[in-house]
């Protein structure tokens, strides 16, 4: 009778936990910025899977934990000990093996997602000539759409090249084909884009949350980095690797446009002669070093000496 009741309670709890996990897995999509790249969809699916399983484990452990805390309390004058159970070999094997299988599975699924994202720059040159081979290599995605988008982008057009220059504290985007520079990153939708990342001084992090991708920019290294924007709109590029005093202000806008608008923008930018762009770090630095003490109303506590910002970037286009 006790056993039957226990099984019943466990079954009901198991069902509830499963439902809650499914619900959380669904909810997890809403915790992110818009899915503006094909890679973002892949990541969000993976994250949803992790959230579902994570919720299941959390509730699966915390349920018995709380049950025990509620129902296995000692009464005030009960000075006796609990049952001297020191272990259970089968239980211990089960709770060693289960997590092992689980994390190996998660590692494998993560690996597949990583492979599908194919953020490794140089590799893609090979795939470009053999798109059919790539198809067969990725046989069982749990949602093939983002991958298709990456594929289509690769098949329909050459990869769009953008050079990214990071410095203290500005982002400059150079379009080598047209030899245009900009402080705002413009990208065509549904085209594979390859960035070549340069840093002029320290480490920076090239991070666009809406794309779910990030790569540190390392001085003296050229790092290739690829992605496929799939949704038009304006997003934010943030420096993700701490880069000194004005680190937090080192941001830029990313505009994903339809192809024709993008090409129009390139043409417009090409027609403009380079001029110094507004730079937040330079602006704040000059204000802080103003002898008149203009910063007094700006911040409550004055700071220390800082590395001066690089002079404002001279670019064809600035927002």
């Amino acid at each position, binding site marked *: 009778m006790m056993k039957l009741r226990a099984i019943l309670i466990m079954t009901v709890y198991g069902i509830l936990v499963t439902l809650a996990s499914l619900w959380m897995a669904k909810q997890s999509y809403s915790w992110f910025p818009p899915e503006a790249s094909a890679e973002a969809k892949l990541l969000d699916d993976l994250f949803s899977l992790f959230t579902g399983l994570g919720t299941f484990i959390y509730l699966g452990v915390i349920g018995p934990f709380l049950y025990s805390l509620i129902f296995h309390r000692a009464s005030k004058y009960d000075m006796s000990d609990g049952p001297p159970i020191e272990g259970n070999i089968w239980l211990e094997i089960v709770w060693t093996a289960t997590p092992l299988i689980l994390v190996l599975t998660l590692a494998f699924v993560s690996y597949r997602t990583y492979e599908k994202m194919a953020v490794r720059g140089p590799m893609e040159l090979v795939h470009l000539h053999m798109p059919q081979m790539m198809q067969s290599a990725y046989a069982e995605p749990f949602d093939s759409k983002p991958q298709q988008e990456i594929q289509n982008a690769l098949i329909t057009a050459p990869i769009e090249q953008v050079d990214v220059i990071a410095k203290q504290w500005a982002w400059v985007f150079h379009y080598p084909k047209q030899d245009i520079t900009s402080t705002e990153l413009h990208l065509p939708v549904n085209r594979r884009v390859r960035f070549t990342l340069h840093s002029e001084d320290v480490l920076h992090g090239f991070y666009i949350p809406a794309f779910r991708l990030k790569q540190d920019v390392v001085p003296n290294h050229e790092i290739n980095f690829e992605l496929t924007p799939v949704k038009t709109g304006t997003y934010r590029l943030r420096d*993700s690797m701490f880069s000194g005093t004005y680190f937090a202000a080192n941001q830029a806008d990313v505009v994903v446009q339809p192809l024709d608008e993008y090409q129009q923008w390139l043409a417009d930018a090409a027609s403009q002669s380079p001029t110094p762009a507004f730079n937040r770090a330079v602006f704040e630095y000059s204000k802080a070093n103003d002898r008149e003490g203009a910063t007094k109303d700006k911040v409550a*506590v004055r700071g220390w000496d800082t590395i001066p910002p690089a002079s404002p970037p001279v670019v064809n286009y600035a927002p």
Partner: protein
Amino acid sequence: MTNISIEAPETVRGQPYPGAPDNWRRFFTFSTDHKVIGIQYIVTSFFFFLIGGTFSMIMRGELITPDADLVDRTVYNALFTMHGSVMLFLWTFPVLVGLGNYLVPLMIGARDMAFPRLNAVSFWMIPVVGVLMLSSFLVPGGPSQSGWWAYPPVSLQNPTGNLINGQVLWILAVAVSGVSSIMGGVNFVTTIFRMRAPGMTWFRTPAFVWSVLAAQLIQLYGLPALTGGAVMLLLDITIGTSFFAPERGGNPVLYQHFFWFYSHPAVYVMVLPAFGIFSEVLPVHARKPLFGYRVIAASSILITVVSGSVWVHHMFASATPSWMRILFMVTSMLVAIPSGIKVFGWVATIWGGKIRFTTPMLFALGGISNWLFAGITGIFLASVPIDIHVNNTYFVVGHFHYVLYGAIVMGIYAAIYHWFPKMTGRMYYEGLGKLHFALTYLGTALTFLPMHPAGLMGLPRRVASYDLEFAYWNVIASIGGFLLGLSTLPFILNMVSSWIRGEKVGNNPWRAYGLEWLTSSPPTVENFEELPIVVSGPYGYGRSRPLVGNIPNPGLTEFPESLTQQKS
């Protein structure tokens, strides 16, 4: 055992040497008594905990609005650097060394640590570290502003051009702290290997001692890497070598390997003793043996081994090749196995027990629930694609604060309350303790939970200003941060007043198994009048079997008469 030959003649008055003060003044001397050193460590590091906490509250004050309007950006950057450095090098490491110092010799039935003078030297280096670290506020250019990682090239940039600058002082402080920790590591490992009481085989050694051993082994293999990296960084700054400086052909990513090779395992140096504390506290307050004790003990050593090969997961977004990312993803995820074994073991320990919600029990339970959450988000972070999105965002900040505050600080509090009657002979006030727990638990959730969604939305860590969309979560986190600051007040009040005039309790108020509970409270200088001979394993709850053969086992086998018995 080896230590019998070096036994000092028994002193009646409880002094390590003739003329030593045996009142509060002994805490201000170069005492070689591990118990005095332990308390010196705990109290000193708690002072730094308050300083580090003050820094964080100023930061939360800045972050309560999107603009950088409370302090200058350089000040904010200095604050988060100092917050991290103080909290790790001057609070978490030393306080756990302090608890280990106090408890390990008592738990293994030794009269002191293996090298008592070395022990005192390692402690007295902590104030030196503190002075070096905090004096950097007074040098021109202010303290280090490169984060507690001190990644070059930012850490190599020296705006004032002075040789004595915040970054140099920071490196010196970290180096001294490293030397102190290595000394501590040698001392702990030797003590645990060589000085266990007769009859205390490895599988009769308490889980806390296992976890301290596992943690200190990490110190021994890992710290040389960090110290080496710090020396190279120092040379780069001061005499212009080119290990890491890119403009001179150095490789800044190399530093990251040196740094994380130690600093990821360092998290296990901190969390393992907390695990040990959970494993000690739960059986006492649930009146049940630790479930799967041998596996829990061995899993600590497993963590030591696995943690040596996971460091690159901090560098997934650095210039790391794909094979490295995938390899370290798998090794990092494997840490979930020994950690999981422990959590399941703890749940099974309280299952069917006779649970009492004492303050240490509440902190241990709270710590375990936070650890469970932090462990799950840790698996998220080990996954390369997820990490590439959330790396260096507030998701990571939320995750490791759940580990450090949610699990480790909770564990430390649990330990302090649990062994407070042993350290002082007096009981703390339960009401204040419960208030402290409630504020801490609520504060932890309010502060660190909102950091996860903020990070998923793309808020980078270490920013002094942020876009408006992140304001909502930041305001909640700031309120939680102030609440955490407030939560230390009942703790301080409780500790001070209980130590002075708390109710006197006997040697073993918890009716706990363990050698430390067999001696007087507070224990005399050499701990035991007669060295115990251990005849059974720890956690003998429900069995009424004696723990030691040669001295009476009050509170274990002849309960309840001895419960209220005063110190004899």
